[in-house]
């Protein structure tokens, strides 16, 4: 790995103010994405991975707010950027693909117009030109009869087609980074594969990097280079895909992997992760996973483990890796 990262997130903290108190949705996340690289952010729903993505995009809405950290993209600190400057980046250099193609499309606007809007905004094209370009964008995501589809409303398309349209919208301006938040969750299995292959192909063609947010380890294995595993607002493990699948270093990652295996290959005691993810309003003391952890040891319920650096591309937040106090301090 050489050169400067395309995206680098350091110490990101995003809080949500609620009636009951402050919810630490993202609690000190570090991650980076290299140009052209595909990186996965994996975790159960509610672990803060989507909030991380929205924090990076600066699409949070009150009561959610990023309170600390640094997000560097192509050398600029996004969190310090003027809103207008950020807007120029969004949809142009960084684009986002969302989970549910139905609800993320404006039901009252023609599909083509929704794509053309971004082009008109960033490329300074007239609406007529942008509509032409939108048809091309639809063609590039392999939608048949793109000119017709451009004139359709979202409700007239199938789920897969809608997701393609959403992707077309995101890639229309050839972004350097594509943030995809569970892009296939709402789709049929067969369609899922098509969409993922489409994303992979586009990435190759455009040379874009991909930050894939998902809970589906199968997708990760197939399409990504590196993985961050997130639990309760924190990164608990980081590794190259092969290394992670071969030898997960965090009990939570292990549990995730086990849950993803076909039933006949599951190891009994790890078949499912017992219990519920903790409340982010008042996380448990010590390791946040300890109440559910099958391998907890002495300090787990007292002291929060640091991120132990196992190798340059490998970290894990677990006392099991505490070979000496120095290791802990080093993180």
């Amino acid at each position, binding site marked *: 790995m050489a050169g400067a990262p395309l995206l680098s997130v350091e110490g990101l903290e995003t809080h949500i103010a609620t009636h009951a108190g402050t919810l630490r949705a993202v609690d000190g996340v570090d991650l980076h994405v290299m140009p052209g690289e595909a990186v996965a952010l994996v975790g159960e729903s509610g672990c803060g991975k989507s909030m991380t993505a929205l924090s990076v995009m600066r*699409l949070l809405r009150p009561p959610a707010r990023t309170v600390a950290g640094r997000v560097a993209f192509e050398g600029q600190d996004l969190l310090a950027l003027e809103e207008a400057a950020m807007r120029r980046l969004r*949809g142009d250099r960084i684009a986002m693909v*969302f989970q549910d193609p139905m609800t993320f499309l*404006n*039901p009252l606007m023609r599909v083509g117009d*929704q794509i053309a809007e971004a082009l008109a*905004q960033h490329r300074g094209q007239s609406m007529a030109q942008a509509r032409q370009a939108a048809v091309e964008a639809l063609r590039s995501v392999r939608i048949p009869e793109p000119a017709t589809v451009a004139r359709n409303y979202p409700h007239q398309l199938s789920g897969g087609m809608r997701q393609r349209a959403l992707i077309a919208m995101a890639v229309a301006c050839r972004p350097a980074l594509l943030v995809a938040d569970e892009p296939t969750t709402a789709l049929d299995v067969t369609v899922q594969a098509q969409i993922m292959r489409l994303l992979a192909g586009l990435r190759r063609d455009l040379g874009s990097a991909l930050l894939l947010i998902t809970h589906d380890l199968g997708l990760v294995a197939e399409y990504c280079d590196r993985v961050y595993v997130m639990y309760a607002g924190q990164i608990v493990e980081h590794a190259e895909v092969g290394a992670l699948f071969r030898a997960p270093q965090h009990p939570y990652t292990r549990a995730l992997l086990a849950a993803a295996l076909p039933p006949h290959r599951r190891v009994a005691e790890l078949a499912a992760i017992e219990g519920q993810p903790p409340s982010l309003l008042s996380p448990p003391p010590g390791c946040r996973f300890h109440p559910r952890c099958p391998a907890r040891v002495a300090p787990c319920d007292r002291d929060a483990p640091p991120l132990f650096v196992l190798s340059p591309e490998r970290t894990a937040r677990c006392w099991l890796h505490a070979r000496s106090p120095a290791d802990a301090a080093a993180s």
Partner: protein
Amino acid sequence: MGPSLLLYTLRRLVQAVPLVFVIILINFALIHAAPGDPIDFLLGSSDATEEYIAQLRAEFGLDRPLPEQLLAYLGKMLSFDLGYSLRFREQVLTLILSRLPATLLLMGTALVVASLLGILLGAVAARRPYSATDNVATLAALAGYSMPVFWLGQIMLLVFALHLAMFPTQGMMSLRAPREGLGMVLDVAHHLVLPVATYSVYHLALVFRLTRVKMQETLALDFITTARAKGLPEGRVVYRHALRNAMLPVVTVIGLNFGFMLAGSVLTETVFAWPGTGRLLFDAIQARDYPLLMGLFTVLSVMVILANVLTDVIYALIDPRVVYR
């Protein structure tokens, strides 16, 4: 889409026919359920001649069985014979039609002003919920919502007509020096200000509140995030993406409230001596002119039904998801 929209409109009109039938049925039921001889309700206390009474009895078939009477009554209604006003000695329909333009002018202006202002203010307030602007606007809307219309009208008169002498107090035009052409239009507009202001307040408050809530809800929807993720300016996100979606329920409620707006017109027209159907209704109540009362009820109900059909059509124009079925 043109022809299919037309067909849709026609179909909705046809579907409204049973409603008109129900209105007529209610009228008929009222005549027969009210205490006293139905003929009293058709005659009031006027000094009618025996022949006229006999003629009415024959026309309405009051000596025949109820179903036959209903048929006779239906027949009269469907041939636009709404009866004869006892108070004004004139065909009820003629009377109502002569008053309808004034009411439509007042209502139409108020509806447009209130809806546009209400939607605009609602959208602005929704962008910064619970800010000072929002709180003031919300409280003001609630206040407008909570005042008897006629009382508000009288306050308006005292403040703007008497003390500030900015607007005339009565009627639709200056009677001392009638004007023609543009002068007359301006004169009518001048007379329109206070009644419209009074009349709009309730509706404005309603539209404002609804728009505000719907905008807040819409701004929290996923496709707004998509629009922002595209890097669109906030103004475009709010007014092009959110407002149009938030408008859908607002349009429906505006349509449904048309009937309530008519109620406001009675009170406003009376306070400002506006020569519309509301004033006519007031006169009809004072004189217990039952044929006129029922005629007004019928005509205004049909107007409300038509307004609802119109609302459906507008909704269909805004929302591509409506299936013209």
